[in-house]
């Protein structure tokens, strides 16, 4: 176990999680009844005949939020190592200035998205062809 280093313990518990997760799914195979009707294996749709498949193309109305999320979460993760060494004696004011600049740059996508009207009314996304001039605020 030592060969996995410090995280062997964590990894072993993850592995245990996989097997313990399989357990409750396997037990009913032994004790549960087994009967099949005509409609047992049909997809549930409130009792109606199932109409088509769910795997269709659909409007992912909030995809712009996903883009902002990408910009944010990656940047926020970079702050963890900074936060740990923050206010060490070696930096006098440098760390504060760096963090301030970082946060300002980091929040600029939010301001941009807000100005672009991503957070506007209705179903969220209001960027349409007419808005391509980047003028429209809300």
């Amino acid at each position: 176990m030592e060969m996995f280093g410090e995280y062997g313990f964590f990894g072993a518990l993850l592995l245990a999680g996989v097997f313990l997760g399989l357990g409750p799914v396997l037990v009913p195979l032994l004790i549960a009844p087994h009967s099949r009707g005509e409609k047992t294996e049909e997809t549930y749709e409130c009792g109606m005949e199932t109409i088509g498949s769910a795997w269709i193309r659909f409007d992912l109305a909030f995809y712009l939020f996903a883009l902002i999320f990408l910009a944010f979460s990656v940047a926020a993760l970079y702050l963890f190592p900074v936060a740990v060494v923050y206010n060490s004696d070696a930096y006098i004011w440098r760390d504060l200035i760096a963090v301030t600049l970082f946060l300002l740059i980091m929040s600029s996508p939010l301001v941009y998205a807000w100005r672009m009207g991503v957070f506007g009314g209705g179903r969220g996304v209001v960027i349409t062809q007419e808005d391509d001039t980047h003028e429209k605020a809300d």
Partner: protein
Amino acid sequence: MARNFTEIFGSVWFAIPAAVTVIMGFLAINALMIVWMERKVAARMQRRMGPTERGVFGLLQTTYDMIKLMSKELITPRHVSRKLYLVAPVVLFTPIIAICSLFPLSENWVFHDYDIALVLVLAFSGMAVVGIFAAGWGSNNKYSLLGAVRSILQNIAYEVPLILSVLAVVIMARTMSLHEIVMEQSTIPYIVVQPLAAIIFFIAATAETNRAPFDIPEAESELVGGFHTEYSGMRFGLFFFAEYSSMIIVCALATVLFLGGWQGPILPGFVWFFIKVYFLIFLMMWFRWTFPRLRFDQLLRFAWLLLVPLALANLLVTAIIVKLI
């Protein structure tokens, strides 16, 4: 000085089974008790009695339910993507034990203290969304798919304020080890100095566990059961178990970060720890019967226009004040 499980048991080969047994036993009993508590709290808030029949105060009701679930047939619908469908509940369940092992229960009860325990907790709780999407997409059911899409959007909205509010604590504690964060709060819990971060964290944590008022991924009046509509028997049981365990995880994390973990007068450490955790869980149940469910765009706007800017400002102010003191 905290001793971890490996030191107590002398070898990892004993420590790992011991840890798995302890955590799994705790989680199983805990899930049964929380479901009972949820039903009792819900009932009392609506002037009903809740379960009373089985055991004292109906305490055994969920045990009966569990046995019932165990003996139910597992149905795999014909049109599902089998791999995704079967693997999803296990994916959701897998990280729970490992995450629970990261929390310090008392001064001398630490399973294993990692330098980056905080990031591990956040990263592996984030894994849940993979399981949820696998379930939703794999089911080939419109309700499930909508539930899964909503769940991901919700995660997108609430992961960021969660991380930012945690960062304010890390700046103050200057460590990511959960044990040391608790030790730093020996004089004063961080909720006193970081009230805003604590509130933001708890709101985001409620959303992270898909609980009301943020239960739109499984809104039963719109989506039947959301992403687990097509699951029956114990597979559904696993989703349920994972949901209640993730409640424990976020409440334990909130306790460690803001309420001083196991620190407290007179009573032994782990008693304090569980008092705080269960108080937070009660708070979550209280939320459920107090706030109406949000609409989706309201939720996204609430997260991005209120929580994120507040969390950013809080982080900046924390950085300045820590520097000045």
